[in-house]
């Protein structure tokens, strides 16, 4: 079973939920992998120390233009929808803007003079660590400033294989990195806060998941801090409220020390186990 843990924006407690779910699943003897797909800001590693056993570099092809062969016809530039090629016909100059190249291969097909070849460009890494026997963390980490973290996320999902339980810490937002992560999921847990910002972000995530036809449920974090509108909205829309996590300075303190609340406090361990069971029950329906 594949479960994605997501939220409209970061900082709502998505990693908190993912790591604690992972902890209780491991304690209950499950074969579980946690994939940290928040490749622009991977944070899980701070909470789960393990032994890295594999570190793979993710790269893309990068077009290279040979000035000896190029006749400055400009066709490759016209075919490059990402504006990565600048060709100055009159000055007989051609440039490739590496940061914009999406590795689509169009320029290679366009060039009739065999002037374009390819090298590799690094996009990030995927690190696999063993946390405990049978439980693994795969972390997608995008290099700073690359055009899209999607190829790195895809590589992390491939590296995660097919454990009996795969948890995916999804990137925030509703654009491609998020879609890439939730696409393989059987169920999506949306984590939000009971505030106007939280509700606004939640609505966007829900709209996106509805379009994708994914089953989902909601965890409200920092319950008691904001207002009641999130709960009213969930009820009105008939969206399952899976868990409420109270606003509690003690939790904030434990979290800020990079510890897991389920490991520190038995009652939370029970609640997270209950959450896991609820999700599994919803998936079976």
């Amino acid at each position, binding site marked *: 079973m594949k479960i994605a843990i997501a939220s409209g924006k970061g900082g709502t407690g998505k990693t908190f939920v993912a790591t604690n779910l992972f902890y209780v699943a491991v304690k209950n003897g499950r074969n579980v992998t946690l994939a940290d797909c928040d490749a622009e800001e991977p944070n899980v590693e701070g909470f789960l120390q393990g032994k890295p056993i594999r570190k793979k570099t993710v790269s893309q092809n990068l077009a290279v233009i040979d000035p000896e062969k190029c006749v400055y016809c400009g066709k490759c530039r016209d075919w490059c929808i990402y504006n990565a090629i600048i060709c100055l016909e009159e000055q007989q100059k051609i440039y490739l803007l590496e940061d914009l190249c999406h590795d689509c291969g169009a320029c290679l*097909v366009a060039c009739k003079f065999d002037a374009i070849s390819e090298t590799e460009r690094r996009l990030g890494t995927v690190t696999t660590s063993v946390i405990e026997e049978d439980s693994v963390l795969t972390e997608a980490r995008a290099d700073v400033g690359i055009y899209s973290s999607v190829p790195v996320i895809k590589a992390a999902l491939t590296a995660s294989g097919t454990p009996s339980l795969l948890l995916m810490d999804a990137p*925030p937002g509703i654009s491609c990195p998020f879609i890439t992560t939730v696409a393989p999921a059987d169920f999506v847990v949306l984590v939000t806060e009971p505030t106007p910002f939280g509700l606004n972000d939640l609505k966007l995530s829900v709209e996106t998941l509805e379009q994708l036809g994914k089953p989902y449920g909601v965890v409200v974090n920092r319950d008691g801090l904001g207002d009641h509108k999130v709960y009213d909205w969930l009820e009105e829309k008939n969206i399952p409220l899976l868990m409420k996590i109270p606003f509690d300075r003690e939790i904030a303190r434990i979290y800020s020390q990079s510890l897991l609340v389920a490991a520190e406090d038995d009652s939370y361990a029970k609640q997270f186990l209950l959450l896991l069971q609820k999700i599994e029950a919803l998936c079976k329906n």
Partner: protein
Amino acid sequence: MQKLKEIAVISGKGGTGKTSLVAAFATMANHPVVADCDVDAANLYLILHPENYKEGKFVSGHKAIIDYNACTHCGLCMAHCRFDAIERKVQEGFPKGKITIDDINCDGCWLCSRICPEKAITMVPEDDSRWYIGNYRNGKMVHARLSPGEENSGKLVSKVRELAKETAEAEKIDLILIDGPPGTGCSAIASLTGADKVLAVTEPTGSGLHDLKRIMELAGKFQIERCVVINKYDLNRRMTEEIKQWCSKENISVIGTIPFEPDMVHSMVHCKSITEWTPDSPISAVVKEIFERLII
């Protein structure tokens, strides 16, 4: 008029209180243009409630569509597509299998449409994203909504900033406040390039410092003046010290520390900025001081 100044407020990840702080600045500044560049999770409008007077479509990209009246299912497009977006599916009535395009994987590169011998592929624009310009109670606001699953938030951010600049110039406004997106990807870059100053809002957690380092590394590449605010600093004073030490080592000034204060959330629940909600509170005094240090 003074030279136009663009200040970007960013954070490595969301939820650090960045938008609440921008909202406070937006209600304190002398008639600024506010640019909400967090187009993926635009929240600032909930506090500023702008009245939009201008709206436009944003084409974020294109998606390939096959015309099955023309397609011979030769598979040439599938061989060319580098995004694994084209598949040959077993389906009755299609002896060679049916060539289909998966929307989620299609990157909109146009290659398949250019090479299809039957000209059976068209590229349709994705234009569900919108941008808006409006008036709010203390100035102008430019914001946008990225449609679900669309790429190119970086380009939409650039569009928002371009509109903010045009608005500032037309109205003779000398300050643009940018609410930046989280992360270190192309939209974060687009919100930073050409800014005069960048303020990173962080929290005293291990991951907060980790994210701060990444985002500051990015800002450093663009040689923009950098400063930091530590929000909820009292939740972990040891970590706060660690962040301060790191900043001083990197020559980044910490222009303020804000204690944890439930009023920050209460003001948001009432759709007001903190300085509007409790103008005379100690927390508002702290925020005002930060703003003064920011705009010098």
